[in-house]
């Protein structure tokens, strides 16, 4: 970094570029919404070489890079077999990030990146943090102290969402989904003053 900047240079220094990587070997996942998470990663060349050597010494052959997505809701993941379920996403090209459709709100997720071999074995390159997708929909859990009949909850739900009264639960659910799709907020104009100028 130091070489990019001569001490006498006036700031800002136009030479600086975001590095393609930091020499890390890691994968990080983020929540986008109740159904999608985002993963980014960086794998060290030495790590990949080590894994490839291991694959060879096991008389196997690397087939493809995959993201292995685990549902680890309420489990202390042991890295092997105690996840509720898992699925693989095959990586193509030189991807260093991916949007993953996990499809289930309110669940905890963890992602391994690794190599799948001809024999069908998985060799780990890096393991992510774990995140929980947002809970979506009205909770089934009732608080005894504050409990009331089912209809009453839906009434409150509909009123809170600005849908008026007399709507059935299914209808309110649908309206809520639509509301979020169209989210009328401010965040459309919030962050800076003049953004609409060019988008009128």
């Amino acid at each position, binding site marked *: 970094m130091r070489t990019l900047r001569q001490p006498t240079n006036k700031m*800002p220094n136009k030479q600086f570029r975001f590095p393609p990587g930091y020499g890390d070997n890691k994968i*990080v996942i983020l929540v*986008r*919404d109740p159904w999608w998470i*985002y993963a980014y990663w960086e794998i060290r060349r030495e790590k990949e070489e080590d894994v490839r050597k291991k694959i060879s010494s096991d008389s196997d052959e690397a087939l493809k890079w995959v993201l292995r997505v685990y549902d680890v809701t309420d489990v202390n993941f042991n890295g092997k077999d105690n996840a509720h379920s898992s699925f693989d996403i095959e990586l193509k090209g030189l991807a260093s990030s991916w949007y993953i459709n996990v499809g289930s709100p309110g669940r905890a997720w963890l992602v391994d990146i690794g190599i799948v071999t001809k024999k069908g074995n998985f060799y780990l390159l890096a393991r992510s943090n774990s995140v929980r997708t947002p809970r979506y929909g009205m909770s089934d859990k009732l608080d005894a102290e504050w409990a009331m009949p089912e209809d009453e909850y839906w009434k409150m739900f509909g009123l809170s969402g600005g849908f008026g009264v007399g709507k059935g639960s299914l209808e309110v659910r649908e309206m809520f989904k639509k509301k979020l799709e169209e989210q009328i907020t401010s*965040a459309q104009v*919030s962050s*800076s003053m003049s*953004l609409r100028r060019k988008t009128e």
Partner: protein
Amino acid sequence: MPKGYLAIVLHAHLPFIRHPEHEDFLEEDWLFEAITETYIPIIKVFDNLIKDNVDFRITVSISPTLMSMFMDQHLQDKYIRHINKLIELSAKEIERTKSDEAFNRLARMYHEQFLEARRIFTEVYHKDLNNAFKRFQDLGKVEVITCGATHGYFPLMEVERKASVRAQVKVAADLYQKVYGRRPLGIWLPECGYNPGDEEAIKEQGIKYFFVDTHGVLFGNPRPRFGVFNPYLCKNGTAVFGRDMETSKAVWSAVEGYPGDYNYREFYRDIGFDLDFDYIKHYINPDGVRINTGIKYYKITGTGNAKEPYSPENARQTAAFHAGNFMFNREKQVEFLQGQMGDRLPLLVAPYDAELYGHWWYEGPMWLDFLIRKVHYDQQNIKMATPGDYLKMYKKFQVLEPAFSSWGWKGYSEMWLEGSNDWVYRHTHKMAERMVEVANENKSAKGLLRKALNQMARELLLAQSSDWAFIIKTGSHVPYAMERLREHAEHFNELYQEIKENTLDEVYIKECEDKYNIFPDIDYSVYAS
């Protein structure tokens, strides 16, 4: 005895933009426009209400970046230069339009408004608008609350989350205390972005409440008894308030909202774009880029391009009508909730971006003035309250785990995490990781090292502003946002390297400090574990 309470919350925020190295800087104008068109008009409304003895309670969140810009002498002086130019331009406009009464009276109106803005800014509040809000708070009219230090979007701070969120909240609360003389009661989470567990950092700073969007409460666990019409307590005792959709829609909605009324002023017909280049060139950007001056002569008129001259009288009548309509609907709402609320009265929480008022919706401050007066004089069903007031009214609240949510597009994080801007996080995360690393390695640092660590904290916080990802996504002013991210990363990483190699350069640190001088009292150890 009222039947319910109305909590209007105005969230005021602009990113920290300050460029002493340039005489004119396009993006600095955001602050100046907002001062003239939003903050001063709102301050005028509050001042007049106080003068007329109209009681009111309203909540205003002022982001720490905005608070810092209010206090900054360089920006204060630049604002005075800015308003002086507008006064000059509007005087020319009075001359130019003298043969056309419809326009001439508008030119006079603007001229008077600009003179008044300058007077309020310099003479009444001595160039620092925090003085105004502090006065309103001390008089018991406004509950001023804080926001994330640089409006960083908490849900995406996944790496070193605890330290990152703690720093955003602590730096904000400390600045608030310095300026407003006490700990903030509440916090507006940037973009209303809530990630379960972030209430710990809020509680640590002595802050009592925060807000989430409607679904943050409705999807909470266990099932919320009172919808969004009463606050809940997180398990750690911090209160959470949910946004009322119906109240929001009345103002925000592009279709049903008030601001689109044909009598209201048209935002997009500004003389900065409409008049001859030679005439306007001294009042737009020096490089010839046309900008909004704030002088606009037309009303929305209709959906077509043909626009008619603005009539302040008609707009005023419309604003009064809309205020009456808003109040009537709130009365209906609380009446409807009667009998549903057990032992308590409903609270309607209505948060809006402050900059909507006056800047986008020119008549917004006037509407607010009418609304507050009508609520005070014309009815007894609703009463204004702040979240702090409401929390004092009852002893018991249901305990709830709010759901992850934001008030952004689609209700979650997609606005700040999509194809155009997702690359940002690997870099800001790395910065957070390095910040925690050097903070832990250098506890109780002194001298130059301490300065370097503190500056790193500033650069990291500034890089975390949600504004950059937002701008990149919306596609306007993108080069500026990219440059800011790039620059903060450069300063940060250079300082990191120099600390690691023990080659700190005093001149360089000073250059960084001068350029990004926000949070003078920051203490990097907030990042240490």
